[in-house]
């Protein structure tokens, strides 16, 4: 075990998987020579050379499209999009091509690729360096959507994503790149997709979150504990496939649910979590299902801290659920 931050854990996963499987290639804007604007790909060029680690022209449609072509041929492309906010020029290749390749070809062609992107707020990045539009991808059948919140998970889930036979959108909470630190297993480490992580047990309320909202929920839970409210925190880790059993089991235990995400509320992935519970576990509910989320605005610049869910806002919803 080494103590790494999330950024280093991503880097570690890339090194490990590239050493293990020579079909893995890494590319994107500024990833090779400079090692990425956040340095997640630092050192890869030196060890693996230009054939496997390369900088691309400025075109996300190209980055994702060549990834699809490489995956078809049998490589394991890991494409980096510099910020999730810039992925949309390549959206068509994701939604209409990568996601449907296996299905539309009757299983003849597959698209095992990973699209990595830093996402979320917290770096004073305004509209275009802060978005969290994971719901777009979660609504796209054929894709998997994976989001780590700890260094160990960043490594294990990225490794699993690279080994996965299907296209995976791997979103890295950039706010945690340096602030999340923790023990990370050395060498190969794979964390299977589709299993939530029970961050904290509690009997009164379930908080469901992912990415940078997990530590926010943890802080809320600590605060709540001082008020005698025992909060359970569930980190979904992958939105697709979703660990519905863990979700329902937790709600069955606590009878109260608050979903927390950074993205705008309307049609965010929190709605799906809520709907699943309203469909399958309503008999356990002792309170409405609350959502604490970003607002239905573009991501702001000066008012970022008002926009992002805080422990206080989460706690407020927890209190409401308990008092209901």
């Amino acid at each position: 075990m080494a103590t790494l931050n999330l950024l280093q854990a991503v880097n570690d996963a890339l090194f490990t998987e590239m050493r293990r499987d020579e079909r893995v290639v890494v590319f994107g804007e500024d990833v090779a020579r400079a090692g990425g604007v956040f340095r997640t790909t630092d050192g890869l060029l030196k060890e693996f050379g230009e054939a496997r680690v390369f900088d691309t022209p400025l075109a996300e449609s190209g980055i994702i499209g060549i990834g699809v072509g490489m995956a078809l041929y049998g490589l394991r492309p890991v494409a980096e999009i510099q910020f999730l906010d810039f992925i949309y020029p390549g959206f068509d290749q994701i939604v209409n091509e990568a996601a449907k390749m296996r299905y539309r070809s009757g299983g003849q062609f597959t698209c095992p690729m990973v699209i990595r992107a830093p996402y979320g707020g917290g770096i004073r990045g305004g509209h275009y360096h802060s978005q969290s539009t994971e719901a777009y991808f979660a609504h796209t059948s054929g894709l998997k959507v994976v989001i780590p919140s700890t260094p160990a998970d960043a490594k294990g889930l990225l490794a699993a994503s690279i080994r996965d036979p299907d296209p995976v959108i791997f979103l890295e909470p950039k706010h945690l790149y340096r602030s999340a630190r923790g023990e990370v297993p050395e060498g190969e480490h794979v964390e299977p997709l589709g299993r939530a992580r029970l961050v904290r047990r509690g009997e009164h309320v379930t908080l469901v979150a992912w990415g940078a909202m997990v530590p926010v929920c943890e802080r809320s839970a600590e605060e709540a504990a001082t008020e005698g409210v025992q909060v359970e925190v569930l980190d979904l880790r992958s939105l697709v496939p979703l660990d519905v059993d863990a979700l329902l089991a937790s709600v069955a235990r606590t009878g109260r649910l608050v979903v927390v995400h950074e993205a705008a509320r309307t049609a965010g992935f929190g709605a799906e979590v809520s709907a699943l519970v309203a469909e399958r576990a309503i008999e356990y509910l002792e309170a409405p299902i609350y959502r604490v989320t970003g607002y239905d605005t573009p991501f702001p610049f000066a008012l970022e801290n008002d926009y992002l869910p805080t422990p206080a806002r989460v706690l407020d919803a927890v209190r409401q659920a308990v008092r209901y």
Partner: protein
Amino acid sequence: MTTEPVLQAKTAGVPPGEASTGLSLAELKHLYRTMVRTRALDERGMNLQRQGRIAFYVPSTGQEAAHIGSAFALRADDWVFPSYREPGIALLRGAPVRELVLQLYGRDLGRTRGRQMPNHFAFADLHLVSISSPIGTQIVQATGCAMAMRARGRDQVAMTWFGDGATSSNDFHVGLNFAGVYRAPVVFFCQNNGWAITLPVDRQTASTTLAVKAKAYGLPGVRVDGNDVRAVVTAARDAVDRARAGGGPTLIEAVTYRMGPHSTSDDPRRYRTEAECETWARRDPLERLRHDLEGQGAWTQAQEDEVRAAARDEVNTAVAEAEAAPSPDPRDLFEEVYAELPWNLEEQRRGLLRPGGE
């Protein structure tokens, strides 16, 4: 297309009918036979749709020399990324007509298992990549595939086909640009058939030709008479050889004409003249190749009759088989979305199979 009207076809300097193209008589006959088989499939496909037996069809009629001639320049282990208008590529590479017809019918036995509209073929064994409707997407995929070939040290080549309309797409731009930067072994074959549904090519772009667009990416751009199969093969071989030898990508513009409608949903009389159609009818690539063969004393009426009859027969047999073949089972809906069936699809499948639904 202001200065050099695209509808006036030009060869790449290869006089038609010249033996110097290096095509043997046997090869020319093979090409001709494939073109005839393709046309037979197209004619039947159009009819099947009119009779309501299949949902849709996209004919390639008039463009057989362009797409078949270009594919002829490839090896079996090269990869092809066609659009929806090149059924002849599949036939040339050995796909049985029955497979194509099963696909048109959306039958379970078809390779795409009834998941895609007609003409959206996929043949992994022929390295013929799954065709999709969105225009241009295959262009950048072909570049990526070619980059992968190079990264793995193989001497394969990728070729991709698309229309004049596709040159306006995002993926044309990025596909050619990436290919130029990485000198990927890929050949971009544009079938300029004059029209993108109802839009004539001179309203698609103001560039003088489509071939000239290669300059924007530092690539050679070649314009060829797409109805002259010899010229097409020559241009394509040149580009394929260069790509294989490490010389990088080429853009080929084949000037040709869509003699039929855009698809069975289209009525071209709404937007183009009889005169234009007649002019191009006289340039029918099948006629041209047959006259060439006849001129060399290498083709008789009996051969012609035999080839046509055989082409018709194989399509008829395929149609009969497809009509009798089973449609996909509803449970197939849920397969191959992912390698493994996740819980939600499993549950949804159970719901569908339960009487009543959910």
